[in-house]
């Protein structure tokens, strides 16, 4: 009996561990190994090249273009998705607005539920240079000179892609903040009100510090998302025009499945792994218990 009971937990855990080892952990380790070889999907031969792929990557202008775009993604997403979402959540949880906030909350959250494929294909209609709603709107209010081929112009393509992500995801982080704001004791706001603090002061002196932990989680989610983003650029622009809206994941995809340079693609994947691990380790270091993550 007692011997049985010792083995039992492993039996219950076996399927979960098998899945994780086979489909998550082994591939990650294999990927690092692959990055030291030169190989493609159709020839069984792998040529060991040591760090050659990495040296090549660090001289590759497209890699830097992609990395720069990921950094843009991260910066803009932090401004809109973390700070913007906190402001929206704070407004929705204010007692003067609270009566209607379920309606706003539900609508703001809707895009989060919809797949990026649907959203991105929908936005190709809005960005259409001739008949898209965005240009129509600009022309209607007399800003004709601003109307342009949003996705076709290398100056605007990346930002047009990033805008779609913001449109989808602000509601998600706002919902996280709403849950977190609801946990703030009301007395803190009452005390601030007695001290004569206005709404803006209350926001900075009560809401912001009291939701610090959630902000931390939100930053991590946003950063990880920004450095692994794939769907939006892939569907909206395919990384183009040229490489103007290339990100690391689309470059990885193209290198692997269009150019069939599997070793080089594994190298890009390893760099993505390194970036996401650094972000996660900072999270663990600063936020030891991980109870909210």
């Amino acid at each position: 009996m007692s011997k049985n009971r010792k083995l039992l937990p492993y039996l219950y855990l076996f399927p979960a561990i098998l899945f994780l080892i086979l489909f998550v952990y082994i591939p990650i380790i294999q990927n690092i190994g692959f990055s030291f070889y030169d190989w493609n999907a159709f020839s069984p031969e792998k040529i060991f090249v040591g760090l050659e792929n990495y040296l090549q990557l660090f001289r590759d202008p497209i890699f830097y273009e992609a990395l720069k775009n990921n950094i843009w993604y991260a910066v803009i997403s932090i401004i809109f998705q973390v700070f913007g979402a906190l402001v929206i959540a704070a407004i929705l949880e204010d007692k003067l607005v609270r009566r209607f906030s379920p309606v706003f909350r539900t609508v703001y959250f809707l895009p989060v539920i919809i797949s990026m494929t649907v959203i991105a294909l929908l936005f190709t209609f809005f960005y259409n240079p001739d008949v898209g709603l965005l240009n129509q709107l600009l022309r209607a209010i007399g800003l004709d000179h601003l109307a342009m081929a949003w996705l076709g112009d290398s100056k605007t393509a990346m930002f047009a892609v990033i805008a779609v992500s913001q449109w989808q995801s602000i509601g998600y982080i706002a919902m996280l903040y709403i849950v977190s704001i609801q946990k703030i004791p009301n007395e803190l706001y009452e005390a601030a009100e007695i001290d004569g603090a206005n709404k803006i002061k209350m926001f900075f002196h009560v809401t912001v510090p009291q939701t610090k932990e959630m902000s931390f989680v939100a930053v991590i989610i946003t950063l990880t998302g920004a450095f692994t983003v794939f769907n939006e650029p892939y569907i909206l622009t395919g990384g183009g025009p040229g490489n103007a809206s290339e990100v690391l994941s689309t470059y990885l995809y193209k290198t692997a499945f269009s150019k069939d340079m599997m070793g080089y693609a594994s190298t890009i994947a390893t760099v993505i792994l390194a970036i996401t691990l650094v972000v996660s380790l900072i999270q663990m270091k600063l936020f030891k218990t991980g109870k909210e993550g």
Partner: protein
Amino acid sequence: MKVSGQALNVQVNVNVRKRKKRVKSYAGLTGTYAFLILYLLVIAYPLFWMVMSSFKDTDGIFNHSWSLPTKWLVENYVTAWNTGISSYFLNSVIVTFLSCLITVAVSAFGAYALSRFEFKFKTIILVFCMGGLMLSPQVSLIPLYKLIQSMGLFNTYWALILPYVAYRIPFTVLLIRSHFLSIPKELEEAAYLDGCSTFGIFWRIFVPLSKPILLTSTILTAYYTWNEFMFAIIFIDDDKLRTIPAGLMQFRDALQTEWGVLLAGLTISAAPIILLFLCMQKYFIRGLANGGLKG
């Protein structure tokens, strides 16, 4: 006297301040609502436009973008359904159903072991599980692609189901475990004394007491699988087996000029998960509060 005079002064001051504040707060409130409604339009109008335009013909979408359809073309939906959406839809239903079933079952078993047993490698396995949360699918894409080919799974439903399950396990195990930990030990001990096996305890006590969290896990897994795109375009090549997100890309290429039909296809694809959300909002948010929708 002096004291009460001061008090009166304070009282007057407060009144003045209050009145000023009220005027200011009316302006503030109007501004706030204006902002909320504007943002509501920015979110809702594109979705409204998608549904309205899905009933128009291409000319209507081009030339009368902002108006309601003059003639409601329900046949756009019929065409979309017959041009491939029906098969993508069915594939998505199968993949989502199996992924949910396997993910929740495997995770519940794992969570049971991690919450009710003491054993040597418990902490290590727990860390192993949490580590899975940090790893993004992009990173293992190429080895997974090779693995799926060598297992003979390429171009089958399992090419999607197995990786989906694997990537959902870490979060789902932790979510279910945190609930299992809150179930009182006494219940279990009583059942144990009555001669119940550990599986009996799991099935008759833990599962019935955890229905809401199991539902939350199922909904979040369904959300993930229904919308997943990257694996779906890479691990399945056969148009007959594609799920909705991958199929829509094919669908768009096939329907270059039939915008109304394309938009009808988009609407059909988004509808099930929106309905699920509107009906099960409470369970969605519960899982969400644990940080589990993305990543």
